């Protein structure tokens, strides 16, 4: 609630500032797109390109959401005395270019330039349609944001937006996650032959190796390192009937065999398959934009949300991957087919990497922690992320409730054991707390 009150006070200040801005630039902004809309337009394209860029698995997508979010945050913070730079707070980010004092800038142009520069780099691997759409958007957006502005303001603002984006890009290059080849699947990898360890679950050749085995070593953003919130070991592996592990598998088996229509709906709503959706981190970014659109959020709230949500999900995947490859646990489908029922099938496609913990659970926990800190613990919202895919809107009483549903959806889908779900959520809350602790307001 305090956050909401603070938001409203900040909004009033911004309205005053926006009223003053024409005086600074000498041009009416009435017909130009507001900076928030500039970002919203670009993020629509970001969510599409995440879906349509082949190396954008969920961890890679989360990484880009973080860097792009920090880019727009810093670009806006350079012109807002009330926003605290993240330089010095995020690992390895030491400084960001500043605006020239006393000179006029236009936030719309700054953010447009920052987004265009950033996206061109982070989505350099997208296909010809993505490139075509990017070029069309860049051209149309530049015309929309710069129309009626003095040339010097446009140039100065463009240069500044690009300078910030370039600085963030340079910072990103040293994190160990910049170079993703073969869609993240190593060409060589020694599988652990002992029972209980991950074995391929797909008939796709590329997926005979697990996805991004070293992602847990990627530099984190807000939490100290990938192992900061490492989980305890999973339940001890056993194929004995009646063992704790067997019972856990039996729960997955029985759940999938007796799914209710509502459970199927939940599983598919949170499926968020890469290349067929904006991925799990993109799902939360979509949620945030739906809320910010409804709330008509001001620019500081928008950039704060995009930066911290991006950081939270990125750290979430790094932390999750650290635990995944530490424990290298077998997937339910492999165990159940071997021990319980060779004809059993999952509802969802089993992702091609170790089971413990659940990636969606971890990153959803982290995302919920951050969004709750911005919009409130009991903020109720609608989630229309998949409406275009003919999956109806769902309503949630809080971010935590949504995260819990995202987590349990993996049990309904037959792709995770309960321990990976429940502990994954806890891991997400642990990771999210580091992002919540970032200071964004002076």
């Amino acid at each position, binding site marked *: 609630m305090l956050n909401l009150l603070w938001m409203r006070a900040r909004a009033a200040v911004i309205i005053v500032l926006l009223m003053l801005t024409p005086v600074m630039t000498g041009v009416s902004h009435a017909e130009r797109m507001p900076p928030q809309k500039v970002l919203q337009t670009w993020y629509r394209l970001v969510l*599409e390109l995440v879906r349509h860029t082949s190396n954008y698995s969920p961890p890679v997508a989360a990484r880009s959401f973080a860097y792009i979010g920090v880019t727009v945050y810093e670009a806006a913070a350079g012109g807002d005395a009330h926003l605290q730079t993240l330089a010095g707070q995020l690992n390895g980010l030491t400084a960001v270019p500043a605006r020239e004092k006393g000179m006029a800038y236009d936030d719309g142009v700054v953010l447009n330039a920052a987004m265009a520069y950033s996206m061109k780099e982070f989505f350099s691997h997208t296909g010809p*349609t993505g490139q075509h759409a990017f070029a069309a958007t860049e051209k149309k957006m530049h015309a929309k944001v710069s129309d009626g502005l003095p040339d010097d303001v446009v140039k100065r603002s463009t240069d500044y937006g690009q300078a910030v984006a370039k600085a963030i890009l340079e910072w990103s290059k040293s994190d160990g996650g910049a170079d993703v080849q073969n869609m993240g699947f190593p060409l060589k990898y020694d599988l652990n032959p002992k029972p209980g360890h991950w074995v391929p679950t797909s008939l796709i050749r590329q997926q005979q190796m697990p996805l991004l085995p070293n992602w847990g070593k990627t530099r984190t953003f807000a939490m100290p390192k990938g192992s900061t919130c490492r989980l305890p070991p999973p339940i001890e592996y056993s194929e004995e009937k009646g063992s704790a592990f067997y019972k856990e598998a039996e729960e997955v088996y029985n759940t999938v065999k007796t799914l209710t229509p509502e459970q199927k709906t939940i599983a598919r709503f949170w499926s968020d398959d890469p290349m067929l959706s904006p991925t799990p981190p993109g799902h939360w970014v979509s949620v945030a934009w739906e809320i910010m659109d409804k709330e008509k959020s001001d620019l500081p709230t928008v950039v704060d949300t995009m930066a911290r949500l991006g950081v939270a999900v990125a750290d979430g995947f790094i932390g999750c991957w650290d635990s995944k490859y530490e424990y290298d646990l077998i997937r339910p489908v492999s165990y159940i087919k071997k021990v319980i029922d060779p004809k059993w099938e999952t509802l969802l496609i089993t992702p091609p990497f170790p089971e413990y913990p659940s990636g969606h659970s971890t990153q959803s926990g982290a995302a919920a922690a951050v969004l709750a800190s911005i919009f409130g613990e009991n903020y109720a919202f609608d989630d229309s992320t998949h409406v275009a895919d*003919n*999956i109806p809107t769902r309503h949630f009483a809080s971010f935590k409730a949504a995260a819990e549903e995202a987590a349990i959806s993996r049990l309904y889908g037959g792709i995770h054991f309960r321990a990976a779900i429940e502990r994954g959520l806890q891991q997400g809350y642990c990771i999210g707390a580091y992002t919540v602790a970032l200071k964004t307001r002076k």
Partner: protein
Amino acid sequence: MRPGIVAGILALSISVFQAGLAQAGQPVTPTFDNQTGTSGLSSRYQGDWEFMVGGGVSAFDCNADGYPDLLLPGGTDKAKFYRNDSTRGGKLTFSEQTSGLEVDNLLGSYPIDIDSDGIMDLVLLRLGENIVMRGKGACQFERANEAWNFDGGKAWSASFAATWEKGNNWPTLAVGNYIDPEQDMLPWGSCTDNWLHRPEQAPGIESKRFAAPKPLKPSFCALSMLFTDWNRSGTPSLRVSNDREYYKGGREQMWHIPPGGEPVLYSEEEGWKYLRIWGMGIASYDLDFDGYPEYFLTSMADNKLQALATLPKDGKGPATYKDVAFAHGATAHRPYTGDDWHPSTAWHTQFEDVNNDGRVDLFIAKGNVAEMPDFAKRDPNNLLVQNDEGNFIEMGLAANVASMNISRGAALTDFNLDGKVDLVVSNRWKDAEIWENTTARAGNWIEFRLENPGANRDAIGSWIEVKNAGHVMRREITIGGGHAGGALGWHHFGVGADKDVEFRVIWPDGREGDWQTVAANGFYVVSPGKAAESWTPSR
């Protein structure tokens, strides 16, 4: 017998036996001679974003000499028609000829005798208005959209299939449309409707025109379509392979097309599985001799080879397919030669027996969409040769067809009528390539052309069955599939060492022709109720 001789015979027997073992599972390696430079072909598939798909080739005989002629699309350039001047067993030779087919914005084409006058017509798939071209003979064509009431629309069309629904004298055409090219900022989710062009009159009443097209909703950016009687019910269904890059809420589709009735999608309750791929091409053939076709679907990275999970009974059974590509060595997921290890991008595909051993082989045209860095830039075309265990062995390099160009369409057909299937491939921004099949140790062969009196002259929807090596090879006669192009004319079978060939035709109306025995290594024209007529090329 002296011990030394016994030992010698034994050693010889063992070595012969071992040689036999070594050859088991190892089919004859086909060889191809690249004759692009001397063929007379000079055609490139040009254009940018709007021509990232398409490039389909069609092969058909339009001057009644039995030799397949060619239409190669130019994209933004004009299409080129080539008359086949080859002689039997000679080098592949073509001459560019003005035909009326020289249109721009052509993505592909399919031959079909729409008016059943015995002269081949063509359907031209374009960015913009599609055109039906009526054959006038001597490889001359004229626009017939108005005469046949064909609405060419203004979409981005790259897939096609045709059938004659029961009781109809006029074909039903399915045209697959892609994304809306005007949605340049957010093209995803903008798939435009596929259209079903049916005869103007109801089944049983003679038609000479098409009715207004019926949108097939929902449509998911189709890149290949095929009417196929997957369950041998006697009524073909319409398979549609869709590009998941652009649809939202989409999937692979199969439509019930009851004659004259409302098209209805196969549902999960009917066993049709939820599959989402970058569908780009369909090839079909009964690979395991169980009477039902398998389907190969091209995509990016792994491709799919689908086999029925349960065989139907009396034309009824679940429409459930399992993917057996991995098990049969047909994933073709990355380049098999060269230094590029990135995943492949697959387009046209076709089953034909290139070494005449009685097992069809699989060709796949490969090539990056344009400049997608996460996919192979040097992506050789595949020639997967099937062994006698039903597994596929990559022989593209050994066969000399491992072109690294950015390929799209292709046609495998016998251009010089020597009984061996040749190959032509279209490429983005580079000249089309053509190869003569020069396999020295190829087996015997036979080729059939079907002549159905009255409507549906080429007997689309029939099955040709050929006995060989203790099983029955079956080929469903279809128009559609592949990527944006197809061949229609002689139907080829390799028959191994067989000198006499027992065959029959099951005609589109279900009538089963008598089993007939003819000599191998010949061409035969087959009509219902008649003995097959031998045919010999005039040159």
